[in-house]
């Protein structure tokens, strides 16, 4: 939350500095721009007791849960969207307490979006989707005040409202950033603009670092002004196996591979050993994917930016 140049950190260093055991953090992406490279580094550094907020958990949250890094999840959806097949680790944790039990708190995507909007705008609450009668209205695990109902002061009955959500820390995948932290994302933005602004501290994970003059060419695509950003990580392919609009496509085969291996605890361990631990860092992971796969995934049409 300041102007001027920001630290440009390796993923290792960013995780070390910002995300100790027990950290509360929101992770960006909505089954696209999921910074899986961050999850891998959290696993490599053997984080414990994390409180992860993520709208669409996907394979990323599944891996963190499977690796035993997480004790709390706030989410609206956790699944492997290719197939689709289950998020097996997530299921094992909730159904069988393996590798250990986790606490889950749920919102709908709209409620999550509006709670983040309230947090971003520093408003005391925000009307949201009517969800009275839904399970996530009644069922409250660790956020007893995740919804309330107020009378509409202008008449017309009960209104479901959410409190502002203000994550202590956010890690968000973006397409590009400059040294001041100005961060740009093209394509659909989901809830990301609000989510980034709701964070007390914010780290962006960019596919590429660019000169500020490049940022100025598309000022509408800046999803976080530099003054919101605390550090920048430059990590190409950080969102693999999800999509990065204009950069690379969803890696369906890798989703399927993970889906297959993670059916068993042993298979999941193998995936982590082979793809996360043995690779050492994300550059190693990318090398393991191989030139051929990368070439297939690369978006081939010319970007306009």
């Amino acid at each position: 939350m300041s102007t001027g140049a920001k630290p440009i950190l390796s993923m290792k260093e960013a995780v070390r500095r910002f995300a100790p055991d027990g950290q509360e953090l929101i992770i960006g992406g909505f089954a696209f721009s999921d910074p899986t490279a961050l999850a891998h580094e959290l696993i490599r550094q053997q984080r414990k007791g994390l409180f992860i907020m993520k709208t669409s958990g996907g394979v990323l949250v599944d891996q963190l849960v499977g690796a035993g890094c997480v004790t709390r999840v706030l989410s609206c959806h956790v699944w492997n969207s290719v197939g689709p097949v289950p998020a097996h680790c997530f299921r094992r944790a909730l159904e069988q307490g393996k590798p250990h039990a986790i606490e889950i708190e749920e919102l709908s995507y709209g409620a999550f979006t509006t709670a983040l909007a309230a947090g971003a705008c520093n408003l005391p609450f925000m009307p949201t989707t009517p969800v009275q009668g839904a399970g996530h209205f009644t069922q409250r695990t660790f956020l007893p005040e995740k919804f309330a109902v107020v009378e509409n002061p202008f008449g017309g009955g009960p209104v479901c409202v959410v409190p502002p959500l203000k994550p202590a820390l956010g890690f968000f995948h973006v397409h590009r950033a400059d040294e001041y932290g100005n961060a740009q994302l093209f394509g659909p933005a989901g809830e990301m603009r609000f989510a980034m602004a709701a964070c007390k501290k914010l780290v962006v994970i960019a596919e590429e670092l660019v000169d500020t003059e490049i940022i100025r060419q598309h000022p509408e695509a800046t999803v976080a002004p530099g003054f919101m950003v605390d550090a920048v990580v430059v990590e190409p392919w950080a969102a693999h196996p999800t999509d990065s609009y204009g950069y690379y496509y969803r890696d369906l085969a890798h989703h399927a591979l993970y889906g297959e291996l993670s059916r068993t605890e042993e298979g999941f361990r193998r995936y982590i050993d082979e793809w996360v631990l043995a690779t050492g860092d994300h550059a190693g992971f990318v090398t393991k994917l191989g030139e051929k796969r990368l070439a297939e995934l690369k978006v081939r049409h010319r970007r306009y930016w």
Partner: protein
Amino acid sequence: MSATRFERMLVTGARCIADGEVLFVGFHWPMLMARIARRLHAPNIVIVYENGIVEDRLTPTFPTSPCDLVAAEGATVCAGSLDALYMWLGSGRVQMTVLEAPIVDRYGNVNTTAVGPYSKPKVRLPGSGGGTELSSLGRNLTLVNASSSKRSYPERVDYVTSPGYLGGAEERARLGYKPGTGPRTLVNPLGLCKFDERGEMYLAALHPDIAPEEAKASFGWPIRIEGGYEVLPAPAADELKVVREELAHAKERYYLLPEA
């Protein structure tokens, strides 16, 4: 080869889609149905997704989910979830809403969260995503359930992820849901269900080879069937051709298809 029940479900669902409408399409089979409709009789539909994409034409590649960004290639609009869920859906601008409902009860309540007790589920499912919004806010809500097993139609779901009529239409209205929302239709391999004014599901149409007794046995409560229920016409040759092409395409895109 004559059409499987699953293929007939896709055709029935696609036929429910009128050309020229704005559709909010949820994950999975609804996406396939909308794509089939677009190729057949509804080339001018405009599809919106929860992440903020507006897809106004057939994409070259079938997206594996609304967040598979091949859905955004050539999109006319890329906005965000506040736009999609509230400015487009909640505002009433979306004319039809299509949501997958793998477990659905007598009053159209959908469970995609947990079977068994929430804190110790027998089967844990993905959760809401935007499904709650589709069912809370969407107009002309059409549910899709690819199963005809009784387990998929309990009398009351263990967990209401996407609210239908809750305990009945009155309860839904009392809690502040807007008029004009709530499920209208359910498409499944047997045929079509509708909802009466109390919010209860009834069998409204069946495929030709399905006897009313067989259909009724698929539901976990004594479901009502209209005396003069409709018998659905079999898929036409062009419909079946498109369905099979799209299923082959979906399979290439790692879609898991039901056993034939």
